[in-house]
């Protein structure tokens, strides 16, 4: 945090505004949030936790550190949104897998965050 210490309160204020949703995050801030999110989700994957909102205790225990980063780098609303999104996305992937096993035709629809 060396660089940010020297900018002092200015960055803290901005980060706080992003977290509370007072300002819209810019590209770098979004990027930072996505990195924290991906790390958190990777941890949830490793611990077989699907719904971080429902299994709050298990998620907190297994991925406490990642969760802290996630909440620090993203707007609070985004944290909730992404956690819900994860549940939906996993459901969707599961369903696709089931349908594919039944021999359904596949369509090219991306559910990744990366733009094509």
């Amino acid at each position, binding site marked *: 945090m060396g660089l940010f210490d020297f900018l002092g309160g200015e960055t803290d204020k901005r980060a706080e505004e992003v977290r*509370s*949703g*007072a*300002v*819209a*995050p*810019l*590209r770098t801030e*979004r990027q930072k949030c*996505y990195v924290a999110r991906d790390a958190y989700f990777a941890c949830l994957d490793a611990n077989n936790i699907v719904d971080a909102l429902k299994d709050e205790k298990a998620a907190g225990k297994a991925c406490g550190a990642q969760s802290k980063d996630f909440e620090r780098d993203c*707007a*609070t*609303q*985004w944290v909730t*949104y*992404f956690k819900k*999104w994860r549940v939906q996305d996993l459901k969707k992937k599961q369903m696709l897998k089931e349908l594919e096993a039944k021999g359904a035709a596949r369509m*090219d*629809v*991306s559910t990744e*965050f990366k*733009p*094509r």
Partner: protein
Amino acid sequence: MQRIPGAIAPSRPLFETLFNLPARGCRRFISSQTPSARRPAAPQCRASAQQYQPLVQKRFKYKTVEEAKSRYRSGPFSWKAGLLFVATGAGLLYYFEYEKERMQRKRVADANKGVGRPKVGGPFSLTNQDGKTVTHDDLKGKFSLIYFGFTHCPDICPEELDKMARFFDLVEAEKPNALTPVFVTCDPARDGPKELKEYLSEFHPKFVGLTGTYDQIKAMCKAYRVYFSTPTSVKPGQDYIVDHSIYFYLMDPEGDFVEALGRQHSPEQAAKIILDHMKDWKGKWRID
């Protein structure tokens, strides 16, 4: 010679007879044992062999028997004929495919063009990121691409705006100054001109950001059949996420809806669709 009944598939003895004609002269016609002897009227023997020679060479232009035989074996097919056949076929196929695609696009454009009043789109008056008023008239004379979103959008809007910037550049490279990219906020309470300016400058300098009062935005969304929902009972300063439709609306220079582009299109596909519609456009363009 042209009266030979078996001329379509002449037999070997016939060939031999025919090509020995100049040397043998008239005698041959009488003494011949070939099917040619069966023809109804034998030519007059008074006619000299020289008189028939040009006719012979016109009908069978082979110099040797071997040449004739080889021609007989291959029939009327040659590599030239084959090439011509393939080239004609390929040309026709290409033309039909092209026409089919063009008609398809025309159908899409026509189907989306309302009779009288357009089904999607319509008059509006909003404020751009520089605080200036922009109306539907300002978009006329060029194609426009309209996208609805909000600056606090977590993932889809920024992703789609990056895509829009990519295919806008692709379209610009091919057909400069023919497309206006527009971003309309669904969250006018938080997205004023200042916020839009800061947000959009990160995507593309040419993006036009539009905002207005809640009622103006609601009317705009209704005109474009855009669904959006701001959560109710939001306290001032409280963060929220707006739910909204995520399509790019391609509008023609008269302000009529042409086609909706979605998440399924890659930037290259989207640019191609737009450029194709531009090529089909027969109306006026605004040059500035």
